[in-house]
């Protein structure tokens, strides 16, 4: 069985609005499914809370239930004009082995999820855009 985790977070920034897409790897087992599989409905396991933070600022807060799909996908948008957005390197720069300056790095979006068994999953992704705002 696949390990439960936050598989990927992608952030796109356009016109000062960041669109984030989160993909989880999680069975999201409901009480009914747990009963048919293991005979005990208390074996149900699903994500109960998701928080997204940039620095100390909360940009997402969801209390969730078992009725999200297996390996759920969430999309949300937030205003990114007060956060520092980094510069993505272009393909040519990557080919030439260019590295970014420290000042060109953006803030990190950190997503934390908790499931019913108490496991905590975290993943961070940098806010970055190819073009300068």
């Amino acid at each position: 069985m696949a390990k439960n985790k936050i598989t990927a977070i992608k952030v796109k920034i356009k016109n000062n609005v960041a669109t984030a897409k989160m993909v989880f790897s999680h069975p999201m087992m409901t009480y009914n499914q747990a009963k048919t599989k293991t005979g005990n409905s208390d074996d149900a396991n699903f994500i109960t809370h998701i928080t997204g933070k940039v620095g100390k600022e909360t940009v997402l807060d969801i209390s969730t239930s078992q009725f999200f799909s297996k390996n759920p996908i969430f999309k949300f948008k937030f205003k990114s004009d007060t956060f520092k957005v980094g510069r993505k390197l272009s393909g040519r720069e990557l080919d030439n082995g260019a590295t970014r300056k420290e000042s060109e790095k953006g803030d990190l979006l950190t997503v934390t999820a908790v499931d019913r068994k108490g496991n905590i999953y975290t993943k961070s992704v940098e806010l970055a855009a190819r073009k300068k705002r």
Partner: protein
Amino acid sequence: MNRRNFLSFAGSAVALSVIPMNLIAEDYRKSKPSVWTAHNIDDATKALYNIKDAIHSDEVQIEVPNINSSGGAVPVKFGTTLDAKTIALFQDANPESAVAVYEVNIYDVKQYEAKIKMAVSGTIMVLVEGTDGKIYMNKAKTEVAAGGCEG
């Protein structure tokens, strides 16, 4: 500073230190457990917002496909242009009706997308708690060819 002034100052300082506690994100599964065990939308609405009838509003958007081949992953797009405190997503196809409660923050654009499970065809409802204290809602019907809750 005399004693009276000091006491009133200390009192306001305590009050100020308490307020930010309320602004910290709330876990609705712990604070309102009856929402998550309610078996229909009316009970869940009553448990969450303590009212029975919400106001229908076109400023609350919901978008679902008319027919889904599988109930295991029904894509739902929803959002609002109203000033909101919380946004709740409910459906009436599964044993319990609450799906999620989103808490709106100052950075939020209030546009969301997610994939949910539906056991049978049913209604998906979005409730928005406005900053004016009123509850607005909008709903959409969707048909499911094969349910997604049997496992």
